[in-house]
Protein backbone atom coordinates (compact mmCIF):
# COMPACT_ATOMS: atom_id res chain seq x y z
CA UNK A 1 0.00 0.00 0.00
CA UNK A 2 2.98 2.28 0.50
CA UNK A 3 4.51 3.49 -2.68
CA UNK A 4 7.87 5.15 -2.81
CA UNK A 5 7.94 7.86 -5.39
CA UNK A 6 11.61 8.67 -5.15
CA UNK A 7 14.67 6.65 -4.43
CA UNK A 8 15.45 6.76 -0.72
CA UNK A 9 18.93 8.06 0.05
CA UNK A 10 19.89 8.14 3.71
CA UNK A 11 22.24 11.01 4.30
CA UNK A 12 22.43 11.46 8.01
CA UNK A 13 24.82 14.24 8.71
CA UNK A 14 24.79 16.33 11.86
CA UNK A 15 24.55 19.98 10.94
CA UNK A 16 27.39 22.18 12.06
CA UNK A 17 25.28 24.75 13.81
CA UNK A 18 23.37 23.64 16.82
CA UNK A 19 20.80 25.28 19.00
CA UNK A 20 21.30 26.13 22.67
CA UNK A 21 18.40 24.88 24.72
CA UNK A 22 17.20 26.82 27.80
CA UNK A 23 18.85 24.21 29.98
CA UNK A 24 22.22 25.14 28.48
CA UNK A 25 22.58 21.90 26.54
CA UNK A 26 23.42 21.98 22.87
CA UNK A 27 21.04 20.36 20.38
CA UNK A 28 22.16 19.31 16.93
CA UNK A 29 19.97 18.83 13.90
CA UNK A 30 20.44 16.05 11.44
CA UNK A 31 19.83 16.58 7.76
CA UNK A 32 17.74 13.52 7.03
CA UNK A 33 16.28 13.48 3.58
CA UNK A 34 12.87 11.87 3.73
CA UNK A 35 11.46 11.29 0.31
CA UNK A 36 7.83 11.98 -0.44
CA UNK A 37 5.60 9.03 0.24
CA UNK A 38 2.12 8.45 -1.05
CA UNK A 39 0.05 6.59 1.50
CA UNK A 40 -3.40 5.23 0.86
CA UNK A 41 -5.51 5.82 3.95
CA UNK A 42 -8.35 3.44 3.28
CA UNK A 43 -10.53 2.20 1.63
CA UNK A 44 -10.71 -0.01 4.73
CA UNK A 45 -9.33 2.33 7.34
CA UNK A 46 -11.35 2.54 10.57
CA UNK A 47 -11.01 6.32 10.75
CA UNK A 48 -12.72 6.91 7.41
CA UNK A 49 -15.97 5.50 8.88
CA UNK A 50 -16.82 3.59 5.76
CA UNK A 51 -15.36 2.70 2.42
CA UNK A 52 -13.47 5.81 1.46
CA UNK A 53 -9.88 6.36 0.48
CA UNK A 54 -7.75 9.39 1.19
CA UNK A 55 -4.55 9.56 -0.79
CA UNK A 56 -2.06 11.21 1.53
CA UNK A 57 1.21 12.63 0.35
CA UNK A 58 3.63 12.73 3.24
CA UNK A 59 7.04 14.13 3.91
CA UNK A 60 8.13 12.31 7.04
CA UNK A 61 5.44 13.01 9.61
CA UNK A 62 4.14 16.00 7.69
CA UNK A 63 1.15 15.73 5.39
CA UNK A 64 1.78 17.75 2.25
CA UNK A 65 -1.35 16.80 0.33
CA UNK A 66 -4.59 14.89 0.70
CA UNK A 67 -6.99 13.80 -1.96
CA UNK A 68 -10.21 11.99 -1.06
CA UNK A 69 -11.31 9.31 -3.52
CA UNK A 70 -15.00 8.50 -3.37
CA UNK A 71 -17.42 6.24 -5.14
CA UNK A 72 -16.83 2.90 -3.45
CA UNK A 73 -20.39 2.97 -2.12
CA UNK A 74 -22.08 4.56 -5.11
CA UNK A 75 -25.45 2.94 -5.68
CA UNK A 76 -27.04 5.38 -8.09
CA UNK A 77 -29.77 6.52 -5.69
CA UNK A 78 -30.72 9.47 -7.88
CA UNK A 79 -31.13 7.27 -10.94
CA UNK A 80 -33.26 4.84 -8.93
CA UNK A 81 -35.43 7.79 -7.93
CA UNK A 82 -36.27 8.37 -11.58
CA UNK A 83 -37.39 4.76 -12.03
CA UNK A 84 -39.59 4.00 -9.02
CA UNK A 85 -42.82 5.55 -7.79
CA UNK A 86 -42.77 8.44 -5.35
CA UNK A 87 -43.58 6.35 -2.30
CA UNK A 88 -41.37 3.44 -3.38
CA UNK A 89 -38.35 5.72 -3.24
CA UNK A 90 -38.79 6.33 0.48
CA UNK A 91 -36.81 3.23 1.62
CA UNK A 92 -33.88 4.33 -0.56
CA UNK A 93 -33.68 7.61 1.36
CA UNK A 94 -32.94 5.59 4.51
CA UNK A 95 -29.79 4.34 2.92
CA UNK A 96 -27.79 7.43 2.28
CA UNK A 97 -27.22 8.84 5.74
CA UNK A 98 -27.97 5.59 7.50
CA UNK A 99 -27.21 7.07 10.91
CA UNK A 100 -30.03 9.59 10.56
CA UNK A 101 -32.64 7.80 8.50
CA UNK A 102 -35.59 9.60 10.09
CA UNK A 103 -34.18 12.94 8.96
CA UNK A 104 -33.71 11.64 5.43
CA UNK A 105 -37.31 10.41 5.33
CA UNK A 106 -38.40 13.80 6.56
CA UNK A 107 -36.39 15.73 3.96
CA UNK A 108 -37.73 13.65 1.11
CA UNK A 109 -41.32 13.80 2.37
CA UNK A 110 -41.17 17.58 2.73
CA UNK A 111 -39.75 17.96 -0.78
CA UNK A 112 -42.62 15.94 -2.27
CA UNK A 113 -45.21 17.67 -0.10
CA UNK A 114 -43.92 21.02 -1.35
CA UNK A 115 -45.30 20.00 -4.74
CA UNK A 116 -48.69 19.01 -3.30
CA UNK A 117 -50.25 22.28 -2.10
CA UNK A 118 -53.62 20.69 -1.28
CA UNK A 119 -52.18 18.16 1.13
CA UNK A 120 -52.62 18.95 4.79
CA UNK A 121 -50.34 17.40 7.39
CA UNK A 122 -52.08 16.76 10.73
CA UNK A 123 -50.63 18.55 13.74
CA UNK A 124 -49.97 15.33 15.63
CA UNK A 125 -48.05 13.94 12.67
CA UNK A 126 -45.85 17.06 12.57
CA UNK A 127 -45.06 16.75 16.27
CA UNK A 128 -44.27 13.03 16.05
CA UNK A 129 -42.04 13.83 13.08
CA UNK A 130 -40.21 16.44 15.12
CA UNK A 131 -39.76 14.07 18.06
CA UNK A 132 -38.41 11.30 15.81
CA UNK A 133 -36.11 13.63 13.87
CA UNK A 134 -34.63 15.08 17.05
CA UNK A 135 -34.21 11.69 18.71
CA UNK A 136 -32.45 10.52 15.58
CA UNK A 137 -30.22 13.60 15.71
CA UNK A 138 -29.20 12.59 19.23
CA UNK A 139 -28.50 9.03 18.09
CA UNK A 140 -26.43 10.30 15.19
CA UNK A 141 -24.44 12.73 17.32
CA UNK A 142 -23.86 9.96 19.86
CA UNK A 143 -22.09 8.02 17.12
CA UNK A 144 -20.09 11.09 16.18
CA UNK A 145 -19.19 11.58 19.83
CA UNK A 146 -18.25 7.95 20.45
CA UNK A 147 -16.33 7.27 17.27
CA UNK A 148 -14.44 10.53 17.46
CA UNK A 149 -13.13 9.49 20.83
CA UNK A 150 -12.32 6.10 19.35
CA UNK A 151 -10.37 7.67 16.48
CA UNK A 152 -8.25 9.62 18.90
CA UNK A 153 -7.70 6.72 21.29
CA UNK A 154 -10.37 7.05 23.99
CA UNK A 155 -12.18 3.74 24.00
CA UNK A 156 -14.61 4.09 26.90
CA UNK A 157 -16.94 6.89 25.69
CA UNK A 158 -17.78 4.79 22.64
CA UNK A 159 -19.50 2.16 24.80
CA UNK A 160 -21.41 4.75 26.82
CA UNK A 161 -22.59 6.40 23.61
CA UNK A 162 -23.75 3.11 22.17
CA UNK A 163 -25.68 2.29 25.34
CA UNK A 164 -27.83 5.41 24.94
CA UNK A 165 -28.10 4.99 21.20
CA UNK A 166 -29.37 1.46 21.77
CA UNK A 167 -32.18 2.93 23.85
CA UNK A 168 -33.17 5.32 21.05
CA UNK A 169 -33.11 2.43 18.60
CA UNK A 170 -35.34 0.43 20.89
CA UNK A 171 -37.77 3.37 20.98
CA UNK A 172 -37.78 3.52 17.18
CA UNK A 173 -38.24 -0.23 16.99
CA UNK A 174 -41.37 0.12 19.09
CA UNK A 175 -42.84 2.83 16.90
CA UNK A 176 -42.01 1.45 13.44
CA UNK A 177 -40.45 -1.99 13.77
CA UNK A 178 -37.05 -1.09 12.34
CA UNK A 179 -33.85 -0.18 14.13
CA UNK A 180 -31.81 1.53 11.44
CA UNK A 181 -33.74 2.02 8.20
CA UNK A 182 -37.10 3.27 9.37
CA UNK A 183 -39.16 4.55 6.40
CA UNK A 184 -41.49 5.78 9.13
CA UNK A 185 -41.97 9.42 8.19
CA UNK A 186 -43.75 9.28 4.86
CA UNK A 187 -45.47 11.55 2.39
CA UNK A 188 -48.52 13.00 4.15
CA UNK A 189 -47.51 12.35 7.76
CA UNK A 190 -46.13 9.35 9.59
CA UNK A 191 -46.82 5.70 8.91
CA UNK A 192 -48.72 4.77 12.05
CA UNK A 193 -49.80 5.95 15.48
CA UNK A 194 -47.30 5.70 18.32
CA UNK A 195 -47.99 2.64 20.51
CA UNK A 196 -49.61 3.29 23.90
CA UNK A 197 -47.14 4.59 26.46
CA UNK A 198 -44.48 5.41 23.87
CA UNK A 199 -44.49 9.13 24.57
CA UNK A 200 -44.08 8.42 28.29
CA UNK A 201 -41.05 6.30 27.50
CA UNK A 202 -39.54 9.09 25.43
CA UNK A 203 -39.99 11.41 28.38
CA UNK A 204 -38.24 8.91 30.64
CA UNK A 205 -35.38 8.71 28.14
CA UNK A 206 -35.07 12.53 28.20
CA UNK A 207 -34.85 12.52 32.01
CA UNK A 208 -32.11 9.90 32.05
CA UNK A 209 -30.20 11.28 29.10
CA UNK A 210 -29.92 14.78 30.55
CA UNK A 211 -28.11 13.36 33.56
CA UNK A 212 -25.86 11.14 31.47
CA UNK A 213 -25.02 13.91 29.06
CA UNK A 214 -23.25 15.93 31.76
CA UNK A 215 -21.06 12.93 32.55
CA UNK A 216 -20.17 12.44 28.90
CA UNK A 217 -19.31 16.05 28.45
CA UNK A 218 -16.91 15.99 31.37
CA UNK A 219 -15.57 12.60 30.41
CA UNK A 220 -14.51 13.36 26.85
CA UNK A 221 -15.00 16.98 25.82
CA UNK A 222 -13.16 18.37 28.81
CA UNK A 223 -10.61 15.57 29.03
CA UNK A 224 -7.13 17.07 28.98
CA UNK A 225 -5.64 14.56 26.54
CA UNK A 226 -8.62 14.91 24.21
CA UNK A 227 -8.43 18.70 24.28
CA UNK A 228 -4.71 18.62 23.52
CA UNK A 229 -5.34 16.33 20.54
CA UNK A 230 -8.12 18.45 19.04
CA UNK A 231 -7.52 22.10 19.85
CA UNK A 232 -5.84 24.33 17.23
CA UNK A 233 -6.07 21.48 14.71
CA UNK A 234 -7.92 21.60 11.41
CA UNK A 235 -8.95 25.23 11.76
CA UNK A 236 -11.75 26.26 9.40
CA UNK A 237 -12.04 30.03 9.18
CA UNK A 238 -15.48 31.56 8.53
CA UNK A 239 -14.39 32.62 5.02
CA UNK A 240 -13.30 29.08 4.24
CA UNK A 241 -16.57 27.70 5.59
CA UNK A 242 -18.53 30.01 3.27
CA UNK A 243 -16.33 29.26 0.29
CA UNK A 244 -16.75 25.51 0.63
CA UNK A 245 -20.49 25.75 1.27
CA UNK A 246 -20.28 24.04 4.64
CA UNK A 247 -23.47 23.63 6.63
CA UNK A 248 -24.57 22.26 9.97
CA UNK A 249 -22.10 21.78 12.84
CA UNK A 250 -19.18 22.38 10.46
CA UNK A 251 -20.47 25.92 9.82
CA UNK A 252 -21.50 26.61 13.39
CA UNK A 253 -18.17 25.30 14.65
CA UNK A 254 -16.59 28.26 12.85
CA UNK A 255 -18.79 30.59 14.86
CA UNK A 256 -21.38 31.35 12.18
CA UNK A 257 -24.82 31.59 13.72
CA UNK A 258 -27.00 29.79 11.21
CA UNK A 259 -29.42 26.95 11.69
CA UNK A 260 -32.08 26.05 9.15
CA UNK A 261 -34.52 25.10 11.89
CA UNK A 262 -34.56 28.67 13.15
CA UNK A 263 -33.59 30.73 10.11
CA UNK A 264 -35.45 29.01 7.30
CA UNK A 265 -38.07 27.18 9.32
CA UNK A 266 -39.95 24.15 8.15
CA UNK A 267 -42.71 22.26 9.98
CA UNK A 268 -43.35 23.83 13.38
CA UNK A 269 -39.82 24.86 14.30
CA UNK A 270 -40.80 28.56 14.31
CA UNK A 271 -43.29 27.91 17.08
CA UNK A 272 -40.71 25.93 19.08
CA UNK A 273 -38.09 28.64 18.66
CA UNK A 274 -40.51 31.39 19.65
CA UNK A 275 -41.45 29.43 22.74
CA UNK A 276 -37.76 29.69 23.68
CA UNK A 277 -37.39 25.95 23.89
CA UNK A 278 -33.87 25.65 22.49
CA UNK A 279 -30.68 27.53 21.69
CA UNK A 280 -28.14 27.10 18.93
CA UNK A 281 -24.65 26.16 20.17
CA UNK A 282 -21.78 27.86 18.38
CA UNK A 283 -18.05 27.32 18.24
CA UNK A 284 -16.29 29.90 20.37
CA UNK A 285 -12.62 29.03 20.26
CA UNK A 286 -12.89 28.30 23.97
CA UNK A 287 -10.02 25.80 24.08
CA UNK A 288 -7.94 26.96 21.15
CA UNK A 289 -8.63 28.67 17.85
CA UNK A 290 -12.12 29.42 16.53
CA UNK A 291 -13.16 26.71 14.11
CA UNK A 292 -10.81 23.96 15.26
CA UNK A 293 -11.70 20.30 15.69
CA UNK A 294 -12.65 20.78 19.33
CA UNK A 295 -15.17 23.51 18.44
CA UNK A 296 -16.93 21.31 15.92
CA UNK A 297 -17.03 18.44 18.38
CA UNK A 298 -18.34 20.74 21.10
CA UNK A 299 -21.16 22.00 18.88
CA UNK A 300 -22.29 18.43 18.19
CA UNK A 301 -22.25 17.41 21.82
CA UNK A 302 -24.15 20.52 22.91
CA UNK A 303 -26.72 20.05 20.15
CA UNK A 304 -27.77 16.79 21.76
CA UNK A 305 -29.05 18.57 24.84
CA UNK A 306 -30.86 21.16 22.69
CA UNK A 307 -32.60 18.33 20.84
CA UNK A 308 -33.76 16.97 24.19
CA UNK A 309 -35.34 20.36 24.90
CA UNK A 310 -37.17 20.32 21.56
CA UNK A 311 -38.46 16.81 22.26
CA UNK A 312 -39.67 17.95 25.68
CA UNK A 313 -41.54 20.89 24.15
CA UNK A 314 -43.26 18.60 21.62
CA UNK A 315 -44.21 16.14 24.35
CA UNK A 316 -45.82 19.03 26.21
CA UNK A 317 -48.09 20.20 23.39
CA UNK A 318 -48.94 16.94 21.60
CA UNK A 319 -52.62 16.01 21.51
CA UNK A 320 -54.54 13.04 20.13
CA UNK A 321 -55.52 13.16 16.48
CA UNK A 322 -54.86 11.65 13.08
CA UNK A 323 -51.25 11.02 12.03
CA UNK A 324 -51.57 10.68 8.26
CA UNK A 325 -53.06 13.15 5.81
CA UNK A 326 -55.39 12.24 2.97
CA UNK A 327 -52.98 10.55 0.53
CA UNK A 328 -53.99 7.94 -2.06
CA UNK A 329 -52.29 4.52 -2.34
CA UNK A 330 -50.56 5.52 -5.58
CA UNK A 331 -49.39 9.07 -5.20
CA UNK A 332 -49.59 11.34 -8.22
CA UNK A 333 -47.66 14.52 -7.71
CA UNK A 334 -48.75 17.69 -9.57
CA UNK A 335 -46.21 19.06 -12.05
CA UNK A 336 -43.60 21.36 -10.60
CA UNK A 337 -40.16 21.66 -9.11
CA UNK A 338 -39.18 22.23 -5.52
CA UNK A 339 -36.01 22.32 -3.49
CA UNK A 340 -36.33 21.76 0.25
CA UNK A 341 -33.36 21.86 2.60
CA UNK A 342 -33.63 20.62 6.16
CA UNK A 343 -31.19 20.60 9.05
CA UNK A 344 -29.78 17.09 9.17
CA UNK A 345 -27.31 16.15 11.94
CA UNK A 346 -24.50 16.72 9.43
CA UNK A 347 -25.78 19.84 7.72
CA UNK A 348 -28.26 20.83 5.09
CA UNK A 349 -29.91 17.84 3.46
CA UNK A 350 -31.43 19.15 0.25
CA UNK A 351 -33.94 17.38 -1.93
CA UNK A 352 -34.78 18.74 -5.34
CA UNK A 353 -37.81 16.98 -6.75
CA UNK A 354 -39.20 17.56 -10.21
CA UNK A 355 -42.51 16.08 -11.29
CA UNK A 356 -44.28 16.17 -14.64
CA UNK A 357 -47.56 15.09 -13.08
CA UNK A 358 -46.95 11.36 -13.29
CA UNK A 359 -46.35 8.53 -10.84
CA UNK A 360 -42.57 8.74 -11.19
CA UNK A 361 -40.16 11.62 -10.56
CA UNK A 362 -38.38 13.31 -13.45
CA UNK A 363 -35.48 14.26 -11.22
CA UNK A 364 -34.79 13.28 -7.67
CA UNK A 365 -31.71 15.12 -6.54
CA UNK A 366 -30.15 14.61 -3.14
CA UNK A 367 -27.73 17.16 -1.78
CA UNK A 368 -25.93 15.26 0.94
CA UNK A 369 -24.15 17.37 3.55
CA UNK A 370 -21.33 14.84 3.98
CA UNK A 371 -20.41 15.13 0.30
CA UNK A 372 -19.98 18.88 0.53
CA UNK A 373 -18.35 18.90 3.95
CA UNK A 374 -15.75 16.35 2.86
CA UNK A 375 -14.44 18.60 0.08
CA UNK A 376 -12.83 20.87 2.67
CA UNK A 377 -10.34 18.09 3.47
CA UNK A 378 -8.18 18.90 0.47
CA UNK A 379 -7.48 22.31 1.99
CA UNK A 380 -7.45 21.35 5.63
CA UNK A 381 -4.89 18.57 5.60
CA UNK A 382 -1.72 20.00 4.02
CA UNK A 383 0.70 21.18 6.68
CA UNK A 384 -0.64 19.01 9.49
CA UNK A 385 0.99 16.03 11.11
CA UNK A 386 0.04 12.53 10.08
CA UNK A 387 -1.36 11.74 13.52
CA UNK A 388 -3.66 14.76 13.31
CA UNK A 389 -5.10 13.72 9.98
CA UNK A 390 -7.25 11.17 11.79
CA UNK A 391 -8.52 13.87 14.15
CA UNK A 392 -9.41 16.11 11.19
CA UNK A 393 -11.24 13.43 9.21
CA UNK A 394 -13.13 12.43 12.35
CA UNK A 395 -14.16 16.02 13.02
CA UNK A 396 -15.86 16.31 9.62
CA UNK A 397 -18.19 13.49 10.77
CA UNK A 398 -19.01 12.06 7.38
CA UNK A 399 -21.20 9.12 6.49
CA UNK A 400 -19.92 7.46 3.35
CA UNK A 401 -23.37 6.25 2.35
CA UNK A 402 -24.24 9.88 1.84
CA UNK A 403 -21.09 11.08 0.10
CA UNK A 404 -21.46 8.35 -2.50
CA UNK A 405 -25.25 7.93 -2.58
Amino acid sequence: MVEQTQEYKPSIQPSEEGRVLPSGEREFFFDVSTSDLEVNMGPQHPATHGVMRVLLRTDGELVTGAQPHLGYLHRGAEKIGENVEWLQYLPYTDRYDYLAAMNNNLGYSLAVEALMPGLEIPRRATLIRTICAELNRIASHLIAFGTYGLDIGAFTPFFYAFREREWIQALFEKICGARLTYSYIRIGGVFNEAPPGWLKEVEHFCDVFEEKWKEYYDLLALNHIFVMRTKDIGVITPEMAYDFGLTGPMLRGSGIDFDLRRDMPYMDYTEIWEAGAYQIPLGSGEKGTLGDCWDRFDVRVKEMIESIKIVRYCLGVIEPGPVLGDVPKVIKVPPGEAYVGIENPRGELGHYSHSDGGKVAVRCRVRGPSFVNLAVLEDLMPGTLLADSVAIIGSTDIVVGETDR
Partner: protein
Amino acid sequence: MDFKAIYDHLRAVDAPGLIEADEPRLPDKETKDKGRSGMPFVRIEPASFVDFLLVCRDDPKLTFELLVDLTASDPAADDENLWVLVQLLSVKHKHRLAVKAYLPKSSASIPSATAVYRAAQWHERECGEMYGITFVGHPDPRNILLPDDWVGYPMRKDYEFPKEYHGVSCE
Protein backbone atom coordinates in the same frame (compact mmCIF):
# COMPACT_ATOMS: atom_id res chain seq x y z
CA MET B 1 -36.12 39.19 1.01
CA ASP B 2 -38.73 37.11 -0.73
CA PHE B 3 -38.31 35.94 -4.30
CA LYS B 4 -40.09 38.92 -5.84
CA ALA B 5 -37.87 41.44 -4.04
CA ILE B 6 -34.73 39.50 -5.02
CA TYR B 7 -35.81 39.38 -8.64
CA ASP B 8 -36.64 43.10 -8.70
CA HIS B 9 -33.27 43.87 -7.15
CA LEU B 10 -31.48 41.72 -9.73
CA ARG B 11 -33.32 43.68 -12.45
CA ALA B 12 -32.43 46.97 -10.76
CA VAL B 13 -28.69 46.21 -10.62
CA ASP B 14 -28.88 44.81 -14.16
CA ALA B 15 -27.47 41.41 -13.26
CA PRO B 16 -25.61 39.95 -16.26
CA GLY B 17 -27.41 37.26 -18.23
CA LEU B 18 -30.71 37.44 -16.34
CA ILE B 19 -33.52 36.30 -18.64
CA GLU B 20 -36.73 35.76 -16.69
CA ALA B 21 -38.37 34.60 -13.51
CA ASP B 22 -40.05 31.22 -13.63
CA GLU B 23 -42.78 31.23 -11.01
CA PRO B 24 -45.37 28.64 -9.99
CA ARG B 25 -48.75 29.14 -11.61
CA LEU B 26 -52.22 27.69 -11.28
CA PRO B 27 -53.54 25.23 -13.87
CA ASP B 28 -55.56 26.74 -16.71
CA LYS B 29 -58.18 24.55 -18.40
CA GLU B 30 -58.64 26.77 -21.47
CA THR B 31 -55.02 26.70 -22.60
CA LYS B 32 -54.63 23.11 -21.29
CA ASP B 33 -51.80 24.34 -19.11
CA LYS B 34 -51.21 21.89 -16.28
CA GLY B 35 -49.73 24.66 -14.14
CA ARG B 36 -46.75 24.29 -11.91
CA SER B 37 -46.38 24.04 -8.15
CA GLY B 38 -43.23 24.27 -6.06
CA MET B 39 -40.76 27.11 -5.95
CA PRO B 40 -39.76 30.02 -8.21
CA PHE B 41 -36.54 30.15 -10.23
CA VAL B 42 -34.60 32.74 -12.16
CA ARG B 43 -33.35 31.71 -15.56
CA ILE B 44 -30.01 32.98 -16.81
CA GLU B 45 -27.85 32.72 -19.90
CA PRO B 46 -25.13 30.07 -19.49
CA ALA B 47 -22.44 32.36 -20.93
CA SER B 48 -22.81 34.89 -18.07
CA PHE B 49 -23.02 32.24 -15.36
CA VAL B 50 -19.90 33.33 -13.48
CA ASP B 51 -20.67 37.06 -13.69
CA PHE B 52 -24.18 36.45 -12.43
CA LEU B 53 -22.90 34.45 -9.44
CA LEU B 54 -20.39 37.20 -8.66
CA VAL B 55 -23.20 39.75 -8.45
CA CYS B 56 -25.21 37.40 -6.25
CA ARG B 57 -22.28 36.88 -3.91
CA ASP B 58 -20.98 40.44 -3.66
CA ASP B 59 -24.08 42.62 -3.84
CA PRO B 60 -24.68 43.94 -0.29
CA LYS B 61 -28.44 43.42 -0.51
CA LEU B 62 -28.12 39.82 -1.73
CA THR B 63 -24.89 38.42 -0.21
CA PHE B 64 -25.35 34.78 -1.13
CA GLU B 65 -22.37 33.45 0.80
CA LEU B 66 -23.16 29.79 0.25
CA LEU B 67 -23.53 27.82 -2.91
CA VAL B 68 -25.61 25.07 -1.39
CA ASP B 69 -26.14 22.89 -4.41
CA LEU B 70 -25.19 22.73 -8.04
CA THR B 71 -26.79 20.01 -10.07
CA ALA B 72 -28.16 19.23 -13.50
CA SER B 73 -31.31 17.67 -14.82
CA ASP B 74 -32.41 16.02 -18.02
CA PRO B 75 -36.12 16.88 -18.22
CA ALA B 76 -37.02 14.40 -20.99
CA ALA B 77 -35.37 12.14 -23.56
CA ASP B 78 -36.83 14.20 -26.43
CA ASP B 79 -36.04 17.57 -24.84
CA GLU B 80 -33.18 19.35 -26.55
CA ASN B 81 -31.88 21.00 -23.38
CA LEU B 82 -30.19 19.99 -20.16
CA TRP B 83 -30.73 22.15 -17.09
CA VAL B 84 -28.11 23.33 -14.68
CA LEU B 85 -29.66 24.15 -11.32
CA VAL B 86 -27.98 26.16 -8.59
CA GLN B 87 -29.24 26.78 -5.08
CA LEU B 88 -27.82 29.82 -3.35
CA LEU B 89 -28.27 30.68 0.30
CA SER B 90 -27.63 33.87 2.20
CA VAL B 91 -26.67 33.42 5.83
CA LYS B 92 -26.84 37.14 6.50
CA HIS B 93 -30.25 37.88 4.97
CA LYS B 94 -31.68 34.37 5.41
CA HIS B 95 -33.02 33.96 1.91
CA ARG B 96 -32.56 31.53 -0.94
CA LEU B 97 -32.38 31.80 -4.70
CA ALA B 98 -32.72 29.05 -7.26
CA VAL B 99 -30.95 29.63 -10.56
CA LYS B 100 -31.49 27.69 -13.74
CA ALA B 101 -29.64 27.67 -17.06
CA TYR B 102 -30.54 25.75 -20.22
CA LEU B 103 -27.74 24.02 -22.11
CA PRO B 104 -28.27 22.35 -25.51
CA LYS B 105 -27.60 18.60 -25.27
CA SER B 106 -25.49 18.62 -28.42
CA SER B 107 -22.90 20.97 -26.87
CA ALA B 108 -23.48 21.10 -23.13
CA SER B 109 -20.89 23.53 -21.85
CA ILE B 110 -20.93 26.25 -19.21
CA PRO B 111 -18.21 28.28 -17.44
CA SER B 112 -17.08 26.76 -14.14
CA ALA B 113 -18.25 28.41 -10.93
CA THR B 114 -15.22 27.23 -8.95
CA ALA B 115 -13.59 30.67 -9.13
CA VAL B 116 -16.56 32.18 -7.26
CA TYR B 117 -17.51 29.34 -4.93
CA ARG B 118 -15.12 26.49 -4.34
CA ALA B 119 -18.07 24.44 -3.15
CA ALA B 120 -18.92 24.03 -6.83
CA GLN B 121 -15.82 21.94 -7.46
CA TRP B 122 -17.15 18.52 -6.51
CA HIS B 123 -20.69 19.24 -7.67
CA GLU B 124 -19.36 20.10 -11.12
CA ARG B 125 -17.28 16.94 -11.25
CA GLU B 126 -20.43 14.96 -10.49
CA CYS B 127 -22.50 16.80 -13.12
CA GLY B 128 -19.73 16.29 -15.64
CA GLU B 129 -19.62 12.52 -15.28
CA MET B 130 -23.38 12.03 -14.88
CA TYR B 131 -24.64 14.36 -17.62
CA GLY B 132 -21.66 15.00 -19.86
CA ILE B 133 -21.59 18.71 -19.16
CA THR B 134 -18.25 20.45 -19.72
CA PHE B 135 -17.40 23.03 -17.08
CA VAL B 136 -14.94 25.32 -18.82
CA GLY B 137 -12.07 26.29 -16.53
CA HIS B 138 -12.59 23.58 -13.93
CA PRO B 139 -9.25 22.87 -12.23
CA ASP B 140 -9.71 19.11 -11.79
CA PRO B 141 -12.40 17.65 -14.08
CA ARG B 142 -11.99 13.98 -13.19
CA ASN B 143 -14.78 11.55 -12.39
CA ILE B 144 -15.72 11.59 -8.75
CA LEU B 145 -18.26 8.82 -8.09
CA LEU B 146 -17.88 6.68 -11.21
CA PRO B 147 -14.78 4.75 -12.27
CA ASP B 148 -12.48 6.60 -14.65
CA ASP B 149 -13.27 4.27 -17.55
CA TRP B 150 -17.06 4.52 -17.37
CA VAL B 151 -18.74 4.80 -20.75
CA GLY B 152 -21.72 7.11 -21.25
CA TYR B 153 -23.54 9.57 -19.02
CA PRO B 154 -25.77 7.56 -16.65
CA MET B 155 -28.18 10.29 -15.55
CA ARG B 156 -29.25 11.21 -19.08
CA LYS B 157 -32.70 9.94 -19.97
CA ASP B 158 -31.47 8.21 -23.14
CA TYR B 159 -28.73 6.31 -21.31
CA GLU B 160 -28.55 2.62 -22.12
CA PHE B 161 -27.52 0.37 -19.27
CA PRO B 162 -24.30 -1.52 -20.01
CA LYS B 163 -24.52 -5.20 -20.93
CA GLU B 164 -21.23 -6.01 -19.25
CA TYR B 165 -18.54 -4.36 -17.17
CA HIS B 166 -14.95 -5.60 -17.45
CA GLY B 167 -16.10 -9.00 -18.67
CA VAL B 168 -18.79 -9.41 -15.98
CA SER B 169 -22.28 -9.74 -17.39
CA CYS B 170 -24.84 -7.30 -16.00
CA GLU B 171 -27.88 -9.16 -17.29
